[in-house]
């Protein structure tokens, strides 16, 4: 699906946290999170708003002090040694954090200078960045005048101008159109295949599924971690699809069934997640079909289906814990 191969199994952890926590007053924003991100992988961080993704990232960068726990990033102890880390890390904030009143080139020039690039190297890097992210024709445009997708490119260009080992991206594609998002992810895979480790948070399932590995956060807790395929594998035999011309009646009937945990409507198809204690999908599907016939919905067809990350997400939010801690991707 992604085109890029999973990273070679390198033991070295670029990010390693143990019990990392952060409390804001009464709110436990991040709660005892253990993570291990390996060199060269795209590691996704998935979770709803307020689940602690940004707080976690800010702690990893030393921008916020943890309340408890330890973190090592690129071998530096955080937050004590975070200043040594700066020139090896690129950070793209959730909000556009470059200067609206400077042009694209001026923003890149500022980033390059701040990261200590000088003279010819700086000019070469800026030119290469403009070319790579196809920003040349906007070089003299003020950042404020760029559309969302182009701002995203500029931010990525600025965050990578010093060729960091680790790139931390906080919801980089929020509010960006699908085409721009696709292109953005292509850039990420190029960076990853060149050896850059990428820690990225997202709302989008289609992006999460492209990560080498990902963790899911809920209320500051890590509720799942693993390769997307491994996570969906944990829900094998748990998904059934039901097709019918009158899905709204089918939904009502399915919700009454004690086999069903949740239903998601996709046009005239219903994506059904079975309860953990329900029989495997190949047995559950005929049973559901019979129940529907009994309810007068004779035209409904139920077939076992592959689980998606969306199902993983739903299962987790129904309270299941799905740690697929197996390092190998299937």
């Amino acid at each position, binding site marked *: 699906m992604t085109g890029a191969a999973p990273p070679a199994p390198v033991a070295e952890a670029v990010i390693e946290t143990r019990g990392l926590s952060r409390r804001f007053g009464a709110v436990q924003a991040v709660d005892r999170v253990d993570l291990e991100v390996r060199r060269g992988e795209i590691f996704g961080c998935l979770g709803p708003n307020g689940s602690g993704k940004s707080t976690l990232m800010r702690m990893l*960068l030393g921008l916020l002090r943890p309340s408890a726990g330890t973190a090592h990033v690129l071998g530096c102890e955080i937050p004590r040694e975070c200043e040594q880390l700066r020139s090896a890390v690129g*950070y793209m904030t959730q909000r556009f954090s470059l200067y609206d009143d400077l042009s694209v080139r001026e923003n890149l020039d500022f980033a390059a*200078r701040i990261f200590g690039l000088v003279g010819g190297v700086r000019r070469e890097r800026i030119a290469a960045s403009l070319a790579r992210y196809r920003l040349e024709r906007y070089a003299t445009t003020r950042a404020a005048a760029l559309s969302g997708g182009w701002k995203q490119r500029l931010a990525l260009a600025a965050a990578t101008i010093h060729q960091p080992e680790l790139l931390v991206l906080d919801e980089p594609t929020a509010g960006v159109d699908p085409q721009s998002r696709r292109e953005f992810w292509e850039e990420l895979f190029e960076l990853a295949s060149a050896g850059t480790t990428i820690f990225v948070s997202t709302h989008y399932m289609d992006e999460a599924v492209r990560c080498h590995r990902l963790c899911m956060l809920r209320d500051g807790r890590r509720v799942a971690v693993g390769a997307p395929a491994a996570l969906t594998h944990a829900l094998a035999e748990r998904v059934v699809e039901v097709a019918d011309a009158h899905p709204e009646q089918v939904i009502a009937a399915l919700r009454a069934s004690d086999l069903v945990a949740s239903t998601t409507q996709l046009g005239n198809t219903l994506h059904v997640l079975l309860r953990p204690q329900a029989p495997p999908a190949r047995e559950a599907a005929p049973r559901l079909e019979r129940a529907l016939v009994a309810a007068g919905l004779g035209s409904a067809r139920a077939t076992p289906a592959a689980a998606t990350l969306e199902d993983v997400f739903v299962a987790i939010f129904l309270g299941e814990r799905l740690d697929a801690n197996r390092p190998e991707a299937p």
Partner: protein
Amino acid sequence: MSALARLGHACARSLRRTLAIAHKELRQLARDRLSIGLVAGIPALQLVLFGFAINMDVRGVPTAVLDHSHSAISRRLVGELAATQTFRIDRSIEEESEGFRLLATSQVGAVVVIPSDFARRFYRGRGAQISILADASDPTVASAVALSGQGFGQDLAARMQPFATGAASAARRLVPGDRDAFGPQSEIVLPEPLRVEVLPFYNPERRTAVFVVPGLVGVILTMTMMLMTALALVRERERGTFEFLIATPVSRLEVMLGKILPYLAVGFVQVALVLALGVFLFSVPIRGSLVELAAGTLPFLAAMLAMGLVVSSASRSQFQAMQLSFFFFLPSMLLSGFMFPFDAMPRAAQWIGSVLPLTHYLRIVRGIVIKGASLGDLGAEVAAIGAFLAGALALAAATFRKRL
């Protein structure tokens, strides 16, 4: 690589980062029409607004007495002067040059000169005269001194009559030296009205602009410098660019310096602008050295910029920064001696005023521009600003965080 070379490289890198921020800041400033308007508009507006005089009753003008007469009657005269309450006799001096130095550095507002023949002329009723050298750079003070001096001359005769006519015996008993000096033949006659000559110095025409324009330099710097630095930093926080900045290798010091440096330059532009406008619009004379003025301005600018950093650390939004700046700006304007003569203020107000850097900077800028004083004479004022600067920097360093 030697340790020294490594240190050198680290410093060079740090300097480059600082300059990168300063450079970026100037670029942004050049594009921000509102800020450019502030830089040029505030001085122009204020200059026009404060072109009007604000006349105040003046009391307690610090005064030095140069008594060449050394007589009982001259001491009595000094007592009577103090009783007018316009003058506050602070010190007596021996040399005229010291009087000028005190005037030039604003340590006194008037110098009373009693000539050596004062007692003789007084007792003979023959044109006894004193001189009051008044610092007329502040026309309010000058007017008050002139008025009070002349009134004093008018009724002094009447009030000193009992003393003068208190018989030769009394005079002999009290001040035998006088009688000895002038001999027993000297007659005590009713004195004619004492002639008090008031000599306005520095601003003889008592033009308000001459006094106000140099003061405006300080007021405008206080207003714009603090606010602009504070806004420049708070804006970064508000717009989220601070998060990008602090995730880069820049240090706290580099951010602070990079933010301050451009505004130092802006500050000097403003000084030049106000003085130029003052010279061309109001014919304000610039008597002292511009180089010394620049040197005296530097610590004051730095103090204001440091205050801007403190304000930025304490504010969450640009609006808050604005309010906080005015919280500092208002007392500066009211208690520094810009609006009201410093010496006429209540004691408590003077205490607060003497902490404020503007108070001392006003003395520096007025001293140099109006009176041609040298910076060396104004060392105490520079030191006071330096002390404030040190405090503000310490506070800025303690409160400025490179964290969210």
